[in-house]
């Protein structure tokens, strides 16, 4: 990946760009470095001045991590986040794949209207949706259930996922499925066995998008779940801030737990993602 090395440094334009980009990468890494360091500190000198960018070895330990991992509520938060995210990704792909296919291949006025409606629903922010969803969840008895948060996530994940997958299907030549149909596959068979493998990169990009917005969701989880052990890890991290003495090292350990799954998921699918040129919209 680094085969070009520093060869562009002959160009002064590129030198400025390089300094800028390295500065940006450093700025992106500094808070992350700080998160790791503070989660490893054992003392209360976290907010001391001047800050110790490289703390002495005597101030480091796994105390905060031990404390956080032994809290039953942290395990419950992670479990809730995992369930909500898995549910959101699975359902979004299950709904958006056939929807994207139908919108791509069906050229009727009804399909066009449905496509326009799906795109228009992207105009409604989650802030607007959260109150109606709260009311609906309450009347359906789903308040404080992960199902309500999944439905909330789907309300904005499905339109974008459908749009992404429609674009991916649009890019596939029709001859591909016509050949499959001639060879005796039904429409469903052609979709599942021929088309889906061909849009795997777009499916991966869509899955990453839904994963990240669901895992990182704050609004729906904060509103639809009651807190305590029944909330997600992102909202749970916030509860550390409300305590009388803020344990920054524990908060940072939880923040790392809340960040790592996204990074891992992204890395796992990054091979697929680089091949999805022109199909991912985020």
């Amino acid at each position, binding site marked *: *990946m*680094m085969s*070009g090395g*520093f060869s*562009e440094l002959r160009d002064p*334009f590129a030198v400025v*760009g*390089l300094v800028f*980009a*390295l500065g*940006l*990468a450093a700025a*992106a*890494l500094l*808070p*992350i470095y*700080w998160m790791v360091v503070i989660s490893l500190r054992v003392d209360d000198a*976290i*907010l001391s*001045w001047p*800050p110790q960018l490289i703390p002495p070895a005597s101030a480091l330990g796994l105390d905060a991590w031990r404390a956080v991992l032994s809290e039953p509520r942290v395990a419950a938060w992670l479990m809730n986040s995992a369930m909500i995210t898995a549910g959101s990704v699975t359902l979004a792909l299950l709904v958006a794949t056939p929807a994207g296919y139908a919108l791509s291949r069906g050229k009727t006025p009804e399909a066009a209207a449905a496509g326009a409606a799906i795109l*228009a629903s*992207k*105009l*409604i*922010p*989650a*802030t*607007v949706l*959260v*109150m*109606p969803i*709260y*009311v*609906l969840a*309450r*009347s359906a008895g789903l308040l404080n259930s992960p199902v309500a948060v999944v439905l909330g996530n789907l309300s*904005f994940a499905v339109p*974008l996922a459908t749009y992404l997958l429609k674009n991916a299907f649009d890019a596939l030549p029709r001859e591909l499925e016509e050949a499959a149909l001639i060879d005796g596959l039904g429409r469903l068979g052609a979709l599942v066995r021929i088309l889906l493998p061909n849009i795997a990169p777009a499916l991966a990009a869509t899955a990453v998008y839904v994963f*990240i*917005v669901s895992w*990182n969701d*704050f*609004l729906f989880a904060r*509103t639809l779940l009651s807190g305590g052990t029944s909330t997600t890890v*992102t909202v749970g991290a916030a509860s550390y801030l409300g305590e009388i003495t803020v344990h*920054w090292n524990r908060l*940072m350990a939880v*923040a790392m737990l*809340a*960040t790592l799954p*996204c*990074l891992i998921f*992204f890395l796992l699918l990054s091979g697929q993602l680089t091949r*999805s*040129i*022109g199909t*991912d*919209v*985020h």
Partner: protein
Amino acid sequence: MLAYLAARLARMLVTLWVIATVVFLATRATGNPIDFLMPEGLDAESRRAMISYFGLDQPLATQYLSFWRSLWDGEWGLGLIERRPVNVIFAERVGRSLSLLLATLTVTITFGVPLGVAAAVWRKSVLGNAVLLAAFLGYAIPNFILAILLLLTFSFSLNWLPSAGSGTVLHYIMPVMALSAFFIASLVRYTRNSMLDVLSQDYMRTARAKGLGEPAVILRHGLRNALVPVITVIGLQMTTLVSGAVVIETVFSWNGVGDLLVGATMRCDYPVLQFGVLIVACAVVVINLIVDLIYSAADPRVRLAE
């Protein structure tokens, strides 16, 4: 251009009408909102008083008409928590929130597009990879966690930036960083992909063949063509930006529409919520109109197609 503008404005008004109607129906069709939004165990007398205060005992059509009449007259009712007219409460906060959104949008575009171009042009070098690494981190960190990290690093540890409030330019730095990270990251990835598509086109070779310098080839011939799909993405992301702002405003005590709405949702302040939702929808629709206009400026074909 005028016809195009008129068509966009008409579409914007229809969208607003649809959203207002959806909000109106959503708060009523599922039953009496008072039962959902008022505290449990409200006595029958107060419940009746509440219902008649909000006109919820009227037929739906009458409620719908008076809903629009009150919108038109600026009579938005009293907020249940602050006991002040809803339009006054919002008037104090709308400017602060809009300036945060516009600052974030500006920063997102200023950083996202050039970095995306750099990541595409120098994709095989340290530079391109540094940009991708930063974009990768910005994409995966929850913006709420990032906000806490920034607070801890730049405010509590380094003492460089104020942790709360919205008075000065310094107050903007952390909320804008926390809010724009995700969008810069996605814009970088998308601009990069779009540029990579464009860089292999024949007209790029032609531009070089006729003797243009590399910056001119990339900026004038490459970027202009690559930008068209990118602007669509910016438009599609606006709703996510507005929702994200709600969380970020709360963390940094921004005193904008976002933290007002979070408070109103927690404490079931129905008048504030109803009109807050409309104001947020207005903001999204107006920003989309601006994006559309930029779109038509970048690509004349959009205008001609209308």
